[in-house]
């Protein structure tokens, strides 16, 4: 695994390679969360799940990115619920 530290990020620009490594690690971590049925990143820690995925995620992504992706995962899920709700409401109102 390529070590990715935030001090490196400050001095030079993020490259396509860095980014895809981070996204890959994120996707693996989120896939693991999905497997254990955890929505909010961090909640899986008490069960000791996804530890290796989490480590790779933290190694490959800057802290600010991790915060952002984690927040977005929760928001996207809430949006999905809201969208489903809106759809059923729309379907009901048509009846």
């Amino acid at each position, binding site marked *: 695994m390529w070590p990715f530290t935030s001090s490196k*990020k400050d001095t030079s*620009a993020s490259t396509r390679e860095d980014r895809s490594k981070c996204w890959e690690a994120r996707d693996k971590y989120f896939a693991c969360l999905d497997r254990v049925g955890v929505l909010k990143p961090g909640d899986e820690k008490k069960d000791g799940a996804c530890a290796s995925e989490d480590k790779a995620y933290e190694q490959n992504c800057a802290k600010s990115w991790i915060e952002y992706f984690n927040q977005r995962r929760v928001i996207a899920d809430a949006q999905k619920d809201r969208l489903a709700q809106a759809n059923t409401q729309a379907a009901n109102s048509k009846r």
Partner: protein
Amino acid sequence: MLSLNHFLRPITTRPFSTGRCLVRPQKHLSGAQLWKRHAGTSPEPSQPSRPSSEPSRPQRNVIGAFTPTSAAIFVVVGVGLFWYFRNEKAKLQEQREKERMSKSYGRPHVGGPFSLVNCTAAPSSSEQRFTHEDLLRRWSLVYFGFTNCPDICPAELDKVTAVVNELRQSNPDLPVQPVFISVDPARDTPSTIRTYLTDFHPSFVGLVGSFEQTKSVCKAYRVYFSTPPDADPKGDYLVDHSIFVYLMDPEGRFVEAFGQTAEKEEMVDKIKQFVVEWSR
């Protein structure tokens, strides 16, 4: 339908002059009969045996509905329709003209004067600064972002790269320049931006200014950006900003803002359309 009936009534009932046509229908040759005659098959035996004492009548009936009155109505209606359609056409043209006028008046006030450091200019070149005047004589796709952007900026810059490539292919003579303006002047140095842009289209122009200059260009382009209040210039933080690709025409005027949901094909098609409209 009602008006049509009203209009037809004088012809079908014909209260004047040609009432006999209705009284004696047997004199009127049907289409089939006429065809038979022309085809040379045996004519109706009763027809030729009719006395030719009224030579004027059958002729009149062959003429049918074509009387001076109907001719007059035909001409009047024809002239009326002609005037009506001409009038409608003029009205439509007037409306279109109005729409065109309001379109040019309705151009959003996006863009304006700015002067920033050109990070991608060759170090020896005299073009170390890039101003609004450098948008002239070419089409520009302007995007505001920052190099530490997790996923949206790279995706948008990839999209702009693809759009520029496609335009270069379809319209090789069209001057198009992609422009990246940093909304994170505290961390984005010219060298950072230059390195960052090597991942995208080689003709990308990277721009950065002081915080004040960045604020001013963002205001001119109606771009929102927000750095966390406790942001350490050497630290790890994200900048929240609006995501739009602005299309500017060769006169440096705003044409269109493409949002995140705009697909590459949609952008290319629209830009081509704008180019055609602009060169008219």
